[in-house]
C-alpha cells in the first residue's frame, strides 16, 4: 500500500465503497464521515491526498480545505461533490484545491487525478508536512 489517501464524506455507503475501490487500486485509503474527524486524522496521520465532499453536516468541505491548507499546505486536496456550483469550484481552486469533481465521478478519472496530484507533490521540494524531502525521490514512488 503506497499512497495515503483520506476520504471525507457524510455519505457513508458511498465513501466506504469508494475507499474500497481505491484500495483495490493499490492506494492506502481511509474514510471518515465528517469534517472534525477528518481534521483530527490529518493532524495524527497526515495523508498525501485528501478527498472531500463540500456539503457535510457540521463542518463543511470548504472549511476543512481552508484549515488543512493552513496547517498542511502540501497535502493535495481533491474536491468531490454533488453540490458544486461554478462559484464553489472557483472558491475551492482559489483555496488551493488540486481538482474539483462533480458526482457521479468516474473512478479512473479520480485515480488519474490522484496520481497527477502526487506528481505535483513529488516535484515539490517539501513533503506533505512541509519538511524538506529526502534527496532520494525514489523512496516516495508509489
Amino acid at each position, binding site marked *: 500500500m503506497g499512497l495515503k489517501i483520506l476520504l471525507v464524506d457524510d*455519505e457513508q*455507503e*458511498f465513501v466506504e*465503497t*469508494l475507499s*474500497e*475501490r481505491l484500495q*483495490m*487500486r493499490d492506494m492506502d485509503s481511509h474514510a471518515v464521515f465528517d469534517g472534525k474527524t477528518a481534521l483530527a486524522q490529518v493532524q495524527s496521520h497526515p495523508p498525501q491526498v485528501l478527498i472531500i465532499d463540500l*456539503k457535510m453536516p457540521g463542518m463543511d468541505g470548504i472549511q476543512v480545505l481552508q484549515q488543512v491548507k493552513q496547517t498542511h499546505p502540501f497535502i493535495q486536496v481533491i474536491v468531490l461533490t*454533488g*453540490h*458544486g*456550483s*461554478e462559484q464553489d469550484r472557483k472558491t475551492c481552486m482559489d483555496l488551493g484545491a488540486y481538482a474539483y469533481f*462533480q*458526482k*457521479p*465521478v*468516474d*473512478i479512473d478519472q479520480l485515480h488519474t487525478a490522484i496520481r497527477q496530484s502526487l506528481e505535483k507533490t513529488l516535484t515539490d521540494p517539501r513533503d506533505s508536512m512541509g519538511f524538506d524531502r529526502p534527496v532520494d525521490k525514489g523512496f516516495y514512488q508509489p
Partner: protein
Amino acid sequence: MTPLQRLKPAFWNLPDDPGNHSGLNLKRKWKLIVLLTSILALSPLIIMTLVDFSLTRRTIETESNTRMLSSLQTLAGIMAASLAENPSTACAEVLWQDAFHQLNTGRHNDLFLIDAAGDLVTPSFHYGRDPGLNALDPRLLTQTDGILDLQTPDGTAVLAGYAKITDTPLTLVQLRPADWLKDLWLKPRLKLLWFLCVSIVLIVLSIMGMATYLVNRIHVTERRRIEALHHEEHANRLASIGRLASGVAHEINNPLDIINQKTGLIVDLLTLKKQTRPDPRVLPLAKDVLDAVKRCGTITRQLLDFARHMEPSTEPVDIEEVISQVLALVEMDARHRGIAIRVAPIPTVPGFECDRSSLLQIFLNLAENAITAMESKGVLTIDVSIQKTGYVTISVADTGKGISPEELPKIFEPFYTSRSDRWGAGLGLAITYGLIREMGGDITVKSTVGKGTRFVLTLPVKAVRQTASDGSLQLPKSEIPVKTANENNTQGAAHVTKQ
C-alpha cells in the same frame, strides 16, 4: 378603420369587468373627469351670462318705460296748455295729429286720446274708431299716469303708456307691441349667446381632449407597470425553475454516485480481483448500470448548467448545444403530440458570443410556440445559416395552423395571445422580441393560414446584450414597429424593423 375609431383612445375598448388587468375602469374615469371639469368650468360662465341677461333686460325695460312715460307726460303737458286756451274736440284732434307726427307713430306705435268714459276721441290702429267701454282696461281711466301690460282686441300683447291731460277728461294713450322691447335688447344679446355657445363647445372639446390625454397616460403607465411586473414574474419563474432544477440535480447526484461506486465495485471485484466467476452476464449488466448512471450524470449536469446560466453574461456560445438543450426540454411535449423535430446540419459559427440564457429563452419560446401551434402531428424545423457576414440567421418553422394576416402584426405585442386559457399571459413572443432587440438582432415572421409559420431571427455574431438603463426589458410598443405587408389573401408577413 374608420376615422372615428382612430380617434378612440386605446383604453376605450378595454373590457369593463373589474378583473381586467388594469384594475381601473378608465372609461368611467374619463367620463367622470369630463363631467366634473365641464361643470366646474361652465357653470360660472353660464350663471354669469344668465344674470347679465336678466339684468340687461330689466335695465332696458325700465329705461324705455321711463322714457315713454316722460315723453307722453311732456306731450300731455303741451296738450293741456293748448286745450286750456281752446277746449274743443277739434283742437284736441289737431294736437293729437301733431303728436302723432312728432312721435313718428304707426302700427307699432299707436297713439290716441280717450275721454273719461273710455271712448276713443281719435282713431287707433288697434282699437279702430269706437271700441266701446269693455275693450279698454278700466285701469286707464282710474289712474293718472303709468305703464300697463294690455291685450288688444286683435290679440296682441302691448305695452300701454298713458298720461292724463290736466283739466280735461282726456287721457293720452300710447301703445307699443310688447315684443318691440324684446327686439331692442334680445338681438344683440343673441349674438353674445352664439359666442357663448361656441366657447362652451370649445371648452368641452378641450376638456375632453385633456381627459383623453391624461387617461391615456394612466393607461400607458399602467400597462408598462404590468408589463414590467409580468417580465419580472417570468424571470422569477425561470429563476425558481433554475433553483429547483439545481436542487434536484444536487440531491440526485449523491445517491447516483452511490449506485455508481457500488456497481463500480462489482465490476472491480469481477475484473481486478477475479474473485468469483458468476453468471457471465453479471459484468455486462453492471456495465449497463454504469452507462445509465453516466447518462443520469449528464442530465443532472445539464440541469445545473441551465440553472447556472440564468444570470446575463456574454460568453462564447455553441448554438448547436443550446438548440439541443432546448430540444431536450420540449422533446417530451413534441413526442406526445406526434410532432417530428428536424434540425438541419448546424454550421459552426466562429466566435459567436451572446448571453446564453437569453438565447436559450428565445429558442425555448419559439419552440414552445411552434409546438403549441401544431396541436397534433407536424414538423418543427430549425435551420441555422450564415447569410450575411457578421450575422447568424436562425429559422424556426412549424406546420401548424398559421397566423391570420390580421393577427400577424399583433403577435409581438405584449398581452396578445391566441390561447384563451389562463396559460398564456401573451408575453412569450413579446419577451422573445425584447431579448432579440437587446442583442441587437432582428426577427421576422411569415405565416400562411393552415400551412404554418416561420420565424426568422438574425443575430449579430457578437450579440452583446444591452439591457435598458432602467433594467426593464425592451418591449415592442403596440403601435409602430411591426410593419405588415400582405402578400395575398391568406399569406401575410410582419417585419420588425431594426431601429
